[in-house]
């Protein structure tokens, strides 16, 4: 499949502070790409560079086989949705939607037709005559999406569009954005720090930190096989449990304090060296409460019922461990439990390089 957006070796700095350094990223046609990372990781800067709102220090941006590096934002065939909605406060919803088309000198009939179509799609028909100040947050963001929609943009850019909304609305609009992508199949680039949004929306996620792409893969791969400790800790809520350990090649064990965990089933066990210092990572849902020859005895220290799930906190050799269990499970403080790890689904990282083994 051909690429819709190509970011080629771009660098960007504010004065002497380097934000992006020699970053490359290809986004396929019709792909939903999510840029995910903590604040300050450069994801919004990257999006602004693609939009042409920031001038690159070095490198090129291509959109639809066109080198747009020096082009104005308006000539890049993009539509953008902002976290703060950025609706023009003095214009009605209708004028907001049509502003871009009016600037291009589009014929009135065509403008009306496009507005009608977008308004139907986003269910904002009855809001067209209102001012942005008379809309709720969710309605405002719908209008903002509509504004990108009417322009027939080839690429949609979303800059944390749902961050200002409450949890319920966020889930609702997330669903709508996904539906929109299904129906329009435009290329979409979506910046967020919310991993749920990233997991649910993305075809591929690019996890960023300090201006570098840490991992670029499907949500499934990123969740199950995180490339390094940072990605492993960032993705997943409640987050992955980590245990510092040492590999014992002879017994195919890792040693955590006084406890031993059999990891003979780990996929890349052959890449481990004897006495190698590692970090053993296991997701809360991949820990089972069952007694077998490998299980570890511990005590329940805290119980967090979350409705669908129950999170049980315990500790192994002083390391806190969370276990995700069914909502119906019943545990009390100080209950003795035996836990065992699903080694197939675990991740082992080198403790120096922090890379997955």
């Amino acid at each position, binding site marked *: 499949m051909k690429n819709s957006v190509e970011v080629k070796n771009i660098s960007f700095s504010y004065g002497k502070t380097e934000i992006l350094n020699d970053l490359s990223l290809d986004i396929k046609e019709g792909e939903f790409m999510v840029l995910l990372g903590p604040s300050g990781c450069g994801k919004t800067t990257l999006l*602004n560079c693609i*939009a*042409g*709102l920031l001038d690159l220090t070095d490198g090129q941006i291509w959109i639809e086989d066109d080198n747009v590096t020096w082009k*104005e*934002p*308006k000539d890049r065939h*993009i*539509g*953008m949705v*902002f*976290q*703060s*909605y*950025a*609706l*023009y*406060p*003095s*214009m009605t919803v209708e004028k907001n939607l049509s*502003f*871009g088309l009016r*600037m*291009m000198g589009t014929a009135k009939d065509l403008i009306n037709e496009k507005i009608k179509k977008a308004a139907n799609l986003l269910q904002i028909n009855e809001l067209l005559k209102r001012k942005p100040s008379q809309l709720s947050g969710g309605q405002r963001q719908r209008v903002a999406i509509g*504004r990108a929609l009417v*322009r027939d943009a080839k690429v949609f850019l979303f*800059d944390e569009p749902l961050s200002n909304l409450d949890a319920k609305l966020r889930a609702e609009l997330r669903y709508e954005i996904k539906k929109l992508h299904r129906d329009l199949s435009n290329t979409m680039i979506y910046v967020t720090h919310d991993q749920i949004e990233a997991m649910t929306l993305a075809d591929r996620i690019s996890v960023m930190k300090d201006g570098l792409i840490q991992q670029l893969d499907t949500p499934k791969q990123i969740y199950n096989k995180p490339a390094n400790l940072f990605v492993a800790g960032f993705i997943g809520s409640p987050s992955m449990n980590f245990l510092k350990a040492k590999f014992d090649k002879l017994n195919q064990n890792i040693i955590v304090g006084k406890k031993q965990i059999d990891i003979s089933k780990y996929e890349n066990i052959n890449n481990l060296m004897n006495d190698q210092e590692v970090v053993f990572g296991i997701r809360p849902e991949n820990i089972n409460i069952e007694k077998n020859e490998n299980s570890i005895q511990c005590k329940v220290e805290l119980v967090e019922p979350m409705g669908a799930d129950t999170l049980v906190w315990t500790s192994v050799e002083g390391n806190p461990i969370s276990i995700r269990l069914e909502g119906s499970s019943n545990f009390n403080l100080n209950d003795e439990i035996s836990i065992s790890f699903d080694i197939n689904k675990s991740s082992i990282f080198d403790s120096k390089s922090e890379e997955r083994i």
Partner: protein
Amino acid sequence: MSTIPKGPRPKHLTVGRIGLYCFIIMCALFFLMPLYVMIITSLKDMDEIRAANILNLPKELSFYAWPKAWSQACTGFVCEGLKPGFVNSVKITVPSVIVSVALSALNGYALAFWRFRGAYFFFGLCMFGAFIPYQVMVYPLLKIEDFLGIYSSLPGIILVHTIFGMPILTLIFRNFYASLPIDLFKAARIDGGNFIKIFFYVIIPMSTPITIVAVILQVTGIWNDFLLGLVFAGRDNQPMTVQLNNIVQVDYGVAEYNVDMSATILTSLVPLFVYFISGRWFVRGIAAGAIKG
């Protein structure tokens, strides 16, 4: 006997409140005093003024001073009152305010949103410009205008007012625009606006409050100006303030205090009126830009 606390707490007039009101009332009286003296003096005839009871109400109302101040009092060689000065002041103020406010809005917009190389330096220059006493620049400006051939003319004085108004106005516009969300500007750029289009379609419609503040500042500042009008306007375009001075500073004949008082009130009517109808905006503007009143 004691009532059980329930609902809103009852309000008591505290000593602090009373003190505050006393202070406010005294301040108001202090500042209203001169106005009171001016108004009653302008309504007395000269005999009564000579009796020197400055705070007494007039025994007999006399409206002789007002029409004289407006259309007959002598300002130097001619005796047409303040009327020509009023017309001149309008001719100076209106274009100066429009030009300076429009240019400053554009400047502020460019400084806030189009961060060109050296924008901060330019901004600093504006700050600096706003605090230089303009007396320093009077003579050089005079020579420049003389060279350009507009010294002592209406365009000459308008240019001077525009120049002196721009630093402070650029500052307040820039600060106002800097407080607007930058995303709005980004959205407009993606929607196809260029420098001018974004200014006209997106920024200006949002500028009402700060424009009102700027207009108030400029109208009062230019209307009240004496020095620049005296130096740059030329004899034919002397503003009201200069003519008022000529009325008050008589070298011969009798000093008619009632005429002086009414002439002064007439001259200050415009700024007074502007403050009166726009006090709310004015306070907001001062608070927003933290600028001089």
